């Protein structure tokens, strides 16, 4: 696939890097031969089977995944392609959701038909995006980021406090209570009023969006966006209409967010200010960064990974799997030699035995609590301390020490690293069993924050993105 405007060497550097090795190589080469259209069809086909296999709550999770995927794809236009760091993105999502909720509920009261409401909401969100892009004419990088972040804050504040505006008889946004009783999408008398119907609606929209974005990426506009990202000044000198392109990126991104917002409001049958906080923005960013900035399949994969994580964490058994497999993978990656990994695991267990024996000798076995080993099936019982009374305090200290330990492992090399690994892993397991496994929502936050940091340091292109060649 050759693209106009890509330098030969840069183009070839990708293929040079992509010489697969290892046992997955044949499969990956075969996958590369599949045309993008068939890949999409395969993905949509598999996704369409999903609601048939899971319970209604599983379908609800699927809807979350699809909404997150759409949002991440929209954000990808602004951040991944045009290279503008937009931290106010979640406000467009909120704006779309609120606008739709206001015009299709008893709030005004108004019940606009879907075919009126959706175009109006999407157009209004796009307009808002275009408006917010105006500052980007003058502001770049960090300034633009902080300004859009302020916009997101202002949005939440306005929505939350609108009811308290002096002289306003009806609170349009419902204040902190939000708006409830939002109508579902209804097209030609067909109402999307169940999870299954909404799932297929979203899946269809996502398919259309992916096709559209794929075309857009290779279009003149898409190439101009990438030029803008790589070097705005040079692009401008090549007579690229920089300001118009920035505005377009913001507007298209916002429109996609607005559209996702309307479905979100309809599925949730309501909107609340807390749905559009910074936490959610970070979730969208985590999906985008994990999958790979700029890559459409990457973003979808990232959204799936990020949206399923909290569900996995909520289930103690599955969370255990995730944690211990992750730990083992990390060990394999850092040590690279299997005998060494076995030695370290043995070391951790031995360390645990000693520590447990010492603690019991000093404080007696009154400090022990009840282990929550749904997953490990008693494997930890012999050597890990599961505390009772002092669990909270001890695990706090252990958490801080574990972070210090991880940083120490990063800093050390060779044998020292192996030595540092043993207590660090012990502490990590200790904190996990005593604290993190019991608090899934906080664990998720830690995980997402950590993912953003680690990905930037280790693999800034994400799981499926292509490494960018920096030309200086």
């Amino acid at each position, binding site marked *: 696939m050759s693209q106009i405007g890509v330098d030969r060497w840069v183009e070839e550097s990708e293929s040079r890097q992509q010489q697969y090795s290892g046992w997955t190589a044949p499969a990956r080469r075969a996958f590369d031969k599949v045309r993008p259209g068939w890949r999409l069809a395969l993905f949509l086909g598999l996704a369409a089977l999903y609601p048939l296999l899971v319970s209604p709550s599983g379908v609800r999770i699927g809807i979350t995944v699809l909404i997150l995927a759409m949002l991440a794809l929209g954000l990808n236009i602004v951040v991944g392609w045009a290279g503008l760091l937009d931290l106010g993105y979640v406000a467009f999502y909120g704006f779309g959701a609120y606008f739709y909720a206001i015009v299709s509920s008893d709030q005004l009261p108004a019940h606009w038909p879907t075919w009126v409401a959706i175009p109006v909401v999407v157009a209004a969100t796009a307009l808002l995006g275009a408006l917010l892009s105006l500052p980007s004419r*003058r502001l770049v990088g960090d300034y633009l980021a*902080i300004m859009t972040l302020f916009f997101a804050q202002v949005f939440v504040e306005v929505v939350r406090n609108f009811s308290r505006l002096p002289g306003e008889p009806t609170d349009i946004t419902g204040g902190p209570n939000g708006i409830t009783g939002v109508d579902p999408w209804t097209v030609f008398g067909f109402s999307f009023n169940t999870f299954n119907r909404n799932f297929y609606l979203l899946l269809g929209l996502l398919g259309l969006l992916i096709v559209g974005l794929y075309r857009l990426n290779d279009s003149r506009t898409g190439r101009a966006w990438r030029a803008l990202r790589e070097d705005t000044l040079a692009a401008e000198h090549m007579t690229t209409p920089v300001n118009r392109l920035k505005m377009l990126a913001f507007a298209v991104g916002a429109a996609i967010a607005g559209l996702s917002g309307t479905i979100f409001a309809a599925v949730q049958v309501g909107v609340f200010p807390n749905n559009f906080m910074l936490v959610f923005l970070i979730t969208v*960013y985590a999906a985008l960064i994990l999958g790979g900035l700029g890559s459409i399949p990457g973003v979808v994969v990232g959204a799936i990974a990020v949206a399923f994580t909290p569900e996995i964490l909520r289930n103690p058994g599955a969370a255990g799997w995730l944690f211990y497999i992750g730990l083992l993978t990390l060990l394999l990656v850092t040590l690279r030699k299997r005998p060494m990994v076995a030695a370290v695991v043995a070391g951790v267990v031995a360390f645990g035995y000693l520590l447990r024996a010492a603690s019991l000798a000093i404080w007696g076995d009154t400090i022990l609590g009840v282990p929550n080993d749904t997953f490990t099936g008693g494997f930890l019982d012999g050597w890990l301390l599961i505390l009772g009374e002092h669990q909270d305090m001890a695990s706090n200290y252990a958490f801080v020490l574990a972070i210090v330990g991880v940083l120490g492992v990063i800093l050390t090399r060779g044998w020292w690293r192996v030595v540092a690994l043993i207590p660090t892993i012990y502490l990590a397991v200790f904190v996990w069993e005593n604290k993190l496994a019991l608090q899934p929502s906080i664990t998720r936050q830690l995980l997402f924050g950590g993912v*953003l940091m680690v990905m930037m340091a280790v693999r800034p292109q994400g799981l499926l993105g292509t490494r960018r060649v*920096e030309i200086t």
Partner: protein
Amino acid sequence: MEFFLQQTVNGLTLGSVYALIALGYTMVYGVLKFLNFAHGEVYMFGAFAGYGVLTVLGGPSALVVPVWLAITLMFVAAMTVATGIGVGLERFAYRPLRRASRLAPLISAIGASFFLQAAALLLFTANSRSYDAPTLIPIESGVTVGPIDIWAVRILVIITAVILMILLTLWVNRSRAGKAVRAVSFDTEAAAMMGVDVDRVIVITFIIGSALAGVGGVMVGLVFGRIFHLMGFIAGLKAFTAAVVGGIGSIPGAMLGGLLIGFAEAYTTSYISSTFQNLIVFGLLIVFLLVRPHGFLGRPDLAKV
């Protein structure tokens, strides 16, 4: 008039704290040309470190040491913890990204901020804590200036902030290390070629910025009482506003901007409505960014090819 003066003192207190946090933003921006999003979290951990020391020393009502010693120890602990976190961030989250694209350190900083917030939530739970400073230093103590009484804690905060700012200004302008900071901030590559150890300068900048943020955290705890795991986010945004309004990269600018934001917030809260307090501060920033992006005392950035 009395009310107005009271609010002015209020704004001055608030402004000193914002100025201290803004200094961290502005100094880091000066040397690294990137926005340390996690700075607000450093300040939050400073506040919690102060609280920890206060609790260890027996709590506000049953101190085992004299009050002045307790407060000094709180400041020292906050500075230590904040510095540790700041330097850790620099070493592990930002230094590996020195040569990466502009987006990378910003995203890493957002991740760090989120991570630290979650860590605080994990360690300290979602309950807000209180220094209960009126028990520590009675609210009646202080001085009477004209028609108003000023609480001793407020005087302590304002004076400490002023002293720290004077020391910082002297250090930056007079000392050898300060000269290195200015050189790196002016042109990193040229400074490196002249034998300035850039990595060291960056670490020093993080140490000073974080220590000031830690002091700011304890001050907020003393004056306004409540500390909680999300306090760093909004305060960080406001301090950043202060840094921008003053002209990012400029040290006197950050002080000026901090005071300005403090006054704006105090007057808005008292004369208009506390609901709109944040809206007005953010609105101020948006207007400022659009009209005068380099702030009061900053230099306009010229793009060089």
